[in-house]
């Protein structure tokens, strides 16, 4: 075997992890990230100053107690069903339709869109880091479209039923077209999509900023933002409290998209083309897949999902577009990688990451640990999921998984030694 073939074989082995193994690895990566996060919390507890130590280990006082931080995090994300430091344990006043849970589900909903966006491109073998930019511009398109079309429609439920779907489609289109740019650059100019999408993120943020601040700014506001949309043109919360900015309709739409993306990938000819391109471009070409077209289409699709994420962010959370869009696109990378780029995996991964994000607010409020902690955990999770070999070594060290027997019936070496 040549070095290249050898390396490819290794790569194949890494990606050939079975579904169970993938779940195990994601889970282990998560645990490890949480543990490393705990160490970081402890260390930063030495850096900062406080009146009384939150915890004491080996005779040294620390300002933050990692266990407490994580407990507060999960409790906060669920809307405090538990009374920490109280023998009663359960909070009798807990209502499932609470503010904390609404925050968690809000984040989850948004992450489903960005996670799906990243998953589609990764499955096509394209490292689309540009979901963020696609989301920024898609969201802006939605906000502007709604703002200009709303006056022409009857206000109220009927107007909303017409306007909201159209606005989402506009967001998807703009996000998709912006995603198609790096796709086309990749297909026709061989430009590495990792770099182009990152550059396009910077460009999208600047363009959106200029457009809003120069042409579409809200005259009544000091911040760079568009004029808020009327309530009927946005996704209003149902059942959950107002301030949580969570609409169960958006979540339902996201879940429907999960099924849709799964169907597209697994059940259609186009999905077959896309997955084949991602797994083995040479084989795809051999199988009659138009590589360039598939690249552009996949990136359009990925961008459209990101753009829809932006639309939902505008319609459900903000009711307008505002500069300083949260890094939902980057979180989408974590969600997708955690989900093994599987659409169904995106749901639990988004829920988990949504919990982290919403809980981090409770953490900042309750323990003083900055909410940026989630940003650190995001990176750590990606890092650990990227090294399945580590967990395999760990696994075989404690003999968790017996060696997988390879199938070879004609006595030759695996894969056949060519002459």
């Amino acid at each position, binding site marked *: 075997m*040549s070095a290249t*073939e050898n390396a*490819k074989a290794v790569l*194949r082995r890494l*990606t*050939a992890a079975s579904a169970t193994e993938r779940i195990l690895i994601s889970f282990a990566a998560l645990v490890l990230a949480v543990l490393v996060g705990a160490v970081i919390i402890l260390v930063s507890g030495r850096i900062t100053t406080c009146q009384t130590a939150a915890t004491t280990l080996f005779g040294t006082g620390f300002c933050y107690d990692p266990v407490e931080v994580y407990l507060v995090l999960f409790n906060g994300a669920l809307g405090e069903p538990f009374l920490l430091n109280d023998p009663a344990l359960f909070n009798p006043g807990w209502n499932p339709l609470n503010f904390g849970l609404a925050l968690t589900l809000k984040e989850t909903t948004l992450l489903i869109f960005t996670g799906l966006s990243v998953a589609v491109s990764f499955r096509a073998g394209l490292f689309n880091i540009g979901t963020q930019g696609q989301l920024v511009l898609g969201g802006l398109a939605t906000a502007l479209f709604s703002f200009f079309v709303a006056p022409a429609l009857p206000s109220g439920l009927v107007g909303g039923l017409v306007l909201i779907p159209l606005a989402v489609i506009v967001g998807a289109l703009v996000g998709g077209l912006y995603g198609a740019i790096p796709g086309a650059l990749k297909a026709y100019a061989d430009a590495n999509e990792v770099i182009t999408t990152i550059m396009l993120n910077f460009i999208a943020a600047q363009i959106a900023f200029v457009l809003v601040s120069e042409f579409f700014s809200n005259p009544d506001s000091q911040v760079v933002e568009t004029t808020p949309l009327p309530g009927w043109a946005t996704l209003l919360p149902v059942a959950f409290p107002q301030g949580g900015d969570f609409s169960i309709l958006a979540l339902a739409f996201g879940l429907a998209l999960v099924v849709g993306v799964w169907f597209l990938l697994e*059940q*259609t*000819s*186009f999905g*077959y*083309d896309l997955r*084949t391109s991602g*797994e*083995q471009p*040479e*084989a*795809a*070409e*051999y*199988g*009659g*897949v*138009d590589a360039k077209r598939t690249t552009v289409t996949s990136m359009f699709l990925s961008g459209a999902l990101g753009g829809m994420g932006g639309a939902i962010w505008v319609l459900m959370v903000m009711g307008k577009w505002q500069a300083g869009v949260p890094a939902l696109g980057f979180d989408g990378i974590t969600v997708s990688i955690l989900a093994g780029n599987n659409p169904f995996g995106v749901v639990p991964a988004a829920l988990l990451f949504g919990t982290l994000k919403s809980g981090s607010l409770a953490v900042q409020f309750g323990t003083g640990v900055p909410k940026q902690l989630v940003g650190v955990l995001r990176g750590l999770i990606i890092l650990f999921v990227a090294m399945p070999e580590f967990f395999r070594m760990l696994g075989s060290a404690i003999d968790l998984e017996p*060696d*997988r*027997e*390879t*199938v*070879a*019936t*004609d*006595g*030759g*070496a*695996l*894969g*056949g*030694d*060519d*002459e």
Partner: protein
Amino acid sequence: MSTAVHLDEITKRFPGVVANDDVDLTVERGTVHALLGENGAGKTTLMNILYGLYEPTEGTVHVDGRARDFDSPADAIDAGIGMIHQHFMLVDPMTVAENIVLGNEPRKWFGTTVDRERARQEVIDLSNRYGFDVDPDDAIEDVSVGVQQRVEILKALYRGADILILDEPTAVLTPQEVEELFRVFEELTAQGKTIIFISHKLGEAMHAADDITVLRNGKNVGTVKADETSNEELAELMVGREVLLEPKAEPQEPGDEVLAVRNLSAEDNRGIPAVSDVSFDIREGEVFGVAGVDGNGQSQLVEAITGLRTPTEGSISYKGRDVTDASRRSRIDDGMAYIPEDRHERGLVMDFDLVQNGILGSQHSPTFAADGRIHWSDARDHAERIIDEYDVRPPHADADAESFSGGNQQKFIVGREFEREPDLVVATHPTRGVDIGAMEFIHERLLDLRAEGKAVLLVSSKLDEVQGLSDRLGVMHDGELMDIVDPRNTTEEEIGLLMAGERPDADATDAEPPVGDAK
């Protein structure tokens, strides 16, 4: 004569495979020793153990009478062993001299800097001593394969190797370059070096070696002296039974033209001309063979025909339609089957199961998909049918392609392509890596297709295969179609000369009579 290498009861196991089973091997100093066997017999594994790339599961390695335990090639190099791998271990953009001294660079200025002048001089001295013709300043990517091989040998000699291992050294050479290599062997042994070379061609072993050891299924089945054995004995040792007759295609009257290639030129991935001005056609019920040493433009020719490469010049017409610029998919849809040369890269998606691989190329065809939706139950039936009819083992449609052995992967690809009901089958190295039983089966199926009136383009580096199966045989050298011959009335030697780029008495037979000289 003393013993240079002695391998004592070597066993090497990989997960699920025993590559070497209790192998003994003794090589005398100053001799050429051939290690003969079929693909997958364990020859390369054994030599990798001697070179310290693998550690034996059991057994010991003795060099110069001392037991050795090599942890890495560095240890083997220290013991005076050099290995020339089948795929050259050279750094393409670096020069010949840079490659030869890599890892042992002469230094100057307190060891901070490579002494390039001294490196050059040492390379020149070394190649003069063994009569090699290499320019130390050429970049590896600019020199021929034969020269690259000599650089590999010099690299080993530069490191003080007394024992040289060559893995399939002739696979990439023209017959003339092979002769040159064997002369180098003589020069080296005359100066006291020991040579072990791996081969699966018994003629070569008989020709160049003093001693021959035959491996079969990882076992040593016999060591013989070259001048005390016969081709028949070696062949029987290699395959373990009487060698089968070469397939012979009965003459048959061909029908209408299916494929016509006219003045076709194409470039390789680096933009270097690889095919120049090739013309031929194939008719119904005809096998057109293409012979040639690997890397003489066959791959690019086939890719142009199958729609994976855009030709720079010329035209291709298929079933009377110009398809020069037609997409790959339109050719598949129009009944063109293609067994690609690289099954790991192209023929199969390694992480897909056989159900998914079974529809590769047909994912848009109405047989398996309607309204853009794939009928997976039909795809499963299809995969199971191929597995059954082409004896793919183990018969698991749900197993990923990469879990199958090379031979079974190949059988699955062949099955998939033959079952397409094609009008033209483009088969490149269709029997590479498969066992003899499967090889016979594939040959029979190819001849069946021919009998059914299909057109077949057969590309193979196995001369006996193309010669035995083809109705007409084109020989390629350096991108050109040297000649189209009748394989039944042409000797292997004549084809060999064409493969080497020599047109025998071209002036005498092919030249047009000068104008005005007619009566």
